[in-house]
């Protein structure tokens, strides 16, 4: 176990390094990526740009700039106020990136945890029902519904729902975007999140349902399921204990990585459409302004979750499938 954790930590550092370096290199190579000319505003004097370059260190070789940026990022991780540290700050607003990400975490967490519970539950339900009734009407109906769910992009579905349920009616069913803290007002918190939860999870429900259905149909043909039936077990027990358990193994991987991705700022569209000022929304703002430090911050934050959850999956796997267990 100790060796496993050490190996994972080393892997995490390597992934973070590669990701941050790629983001940095891509950023300084893209057209219009020069931060100095952007910071100098419209119609600047050449002298202004040169000054900014010098002041911010943009005249240094790129690897020096990269190392400086990583140092500042690390400084930003120190808890508390960052007054005395030279931390990673936005080029545009000069705001502390770590603080901004932290501010976005409650909204993002609320959105993602809620949506994840919904999509895992309903995805499983859809998969089980359509596998049990494979080929019959209920399977086709559910499969079609799932396909429609998968085919609706969040930016379209979100805007449509927001328009018809929150903006257009005189007595709207739901608030028109925004976020209320869970501790401030739990009822309003949930009320504000129902539409975003729905939008974010609908895509995953369809996808998970399809994957689980095909897994279950495969497992149902396994010899050990026939053994379970020949033992005289009831259909429910065969389904839940023998078919579902074995079919869930691939779903766990999918879930952990998808969950990590949305938690790490991947719910950009949902957060933007519903004005949830979370990490994804912050990422969208920064990408729009070609503002490197926040992009770097959010990317590293997201990469951390992906690596972290894939480690959790590996541990969980061992419990699900004893064949993986080292002897």
């Amino acid at each position, binding site marked *: 176990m100790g060796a496993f954790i050490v190996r994972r930590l080393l892997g995490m550092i390597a992934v973070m390094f590669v990701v941050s370096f790629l983001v940095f290199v891509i950023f300084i190579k893209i057209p219009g990526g020069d931060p100095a000319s952007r910071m100098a505003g419209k119609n600047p004097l050449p002298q202004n740009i040169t000054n900014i370059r010098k002041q911010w260190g943009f005249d240094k070789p790129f690897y020096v700039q990269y190392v400086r940026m990583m140092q500042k990022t690390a400084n930003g991780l120190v808890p508390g106020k960052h007054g005395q540290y030279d931390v990673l700050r936005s080029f545009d607003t000069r705001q502390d990136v770590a603080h901004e990400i932290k501010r976005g975490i409650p909204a993002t967490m609320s959105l993602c945890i809620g949506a994840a519970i919904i999509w895992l539950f309903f995805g499983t339900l859809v998969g089980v029902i359509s596998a049990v009734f494979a080929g019959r009407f209920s399977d086709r109906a559910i499969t079609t519904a799932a396909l429609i769910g998968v085919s609706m992009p969040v930016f379209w579905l979100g805007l449509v729902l927001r328009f018809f349920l929150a903006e257009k009616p005189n007595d709207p069913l739901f608030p028109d975007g925004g976020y209320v803290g869970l501790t401030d007002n739990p009822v309003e918190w949930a009320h504000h999140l129902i539409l975003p939860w729905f939008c974010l999870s609908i895509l995953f429900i369809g996808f998970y349902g399809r994957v689980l259905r095909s897994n279950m149909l495969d497992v149902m043909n396994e*010899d050990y399921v*026939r*053994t379970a039936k*020949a033992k*005289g077990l009831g259909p429910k027990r065969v389904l839940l204990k023998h078919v579902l*358990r074995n079919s869930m193994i691939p779903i766990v991987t999918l879930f952990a990585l998808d969950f990590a991705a949305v938690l790490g700022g991947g719910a950009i569209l949902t957060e933007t459409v519903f004005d949830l000022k979370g990490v994804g929304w912050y990422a969208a703002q920064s990408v729009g302004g070609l503002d490197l430090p926040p992009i770097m911050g959010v990317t590293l934050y997201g990469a951390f979750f992906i690596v972290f959850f894939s480690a959790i999956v590996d541990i969980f796997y061992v419990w699900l499938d*004893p064949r993986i267990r080292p*002897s």
Partner: protein
Amino acid sequence: MAEPLLEVKGLKVRFATEDGIVRAVDGVDFQLERGKVLGIVGESGSGKSVTAMTLLGLTRGQNAAFEGEVIYKGQDLLWMPESRLRDVRGNEIAMIFQDPMTSLNPVYRIGYQIVEAIVEHESISKKQAKRRAIDLLKQVGIPNASERIDTYPHELSGGMRQRVMIALALSSNPDIVIADEPTTALDVTIQAQILALLDNLRAEFDSAVILITHDLGVVASIAHDILVMYAGRVVEAGPKRELFYDPQMPYTWGLLGSIPRLDRPKQEKLHSITGSPPSLINAPRGCKFRPRCPHVFDRCIEEPELLNRVQAPDHLDRCWLSLDDKRRLRDETIAREASIA
């Protein structure tokens, strides 16, 4: 003759597929007595496994159709509702499958899988069930049973897993054990051990065994009676001695001829039956073995019934050849084989 434990009459199983109706089992009759071992022999696709699974209702499905009767203790299993049939499955009639590597669920400990079967049929505590599972594992010859009970299937060898499957089958002290190719996936040395174990346990538990195999050598060791199946039907049936010493169907001769023999001079090539089994969708008219039979004559186009055609009382077959012709042709065949050698 004693009251049979299980009686199968005119069993037919058809599956609707995209290519047409598959007559997987097309008329199977047999009786099984307590304490006896019935061997069912045939090539792949002859309907022996479907017959066995149908006895337990495991072939039921949307595209399956059945005919006939499966009488067990005065009840017809073939038409019994699923919920009642579940009390018979694993409890009164248990099954052992071909491939022990895939027949146990990889994610549960073997003890759990045995206990699960016991508590399904009896109202005893899990603790008592576990104690019984340990005893069963001891009886099937698994060393350190009280430790092995907590292992996962992948931690055991193929032979050990098949022993676990047998323990599982015996867990509710069934009247009938159906063993579907129980030794096919195992090494030859392990095969003999498993067969001996099966035979000992049959005597100990006073149950009957249906042993399904494509290997006449396997039935030769422990079966009392033998059914030979071809293209979904029984083509010859009788006590073991009758079948081995006075086989009536040219198909049975072919099967017997294709066993490698140590007591005969080594032949260049092992004998095999030419051709392949007929399609079960468009089976040939009359005798199903007709297209492959070296002794076919004009009468074979007529449907042969499974009848007693020899002096021995329980020996049935489906061959139109006269008794004299059969003896002559069989002796010629054997003589030719000896001369080739």
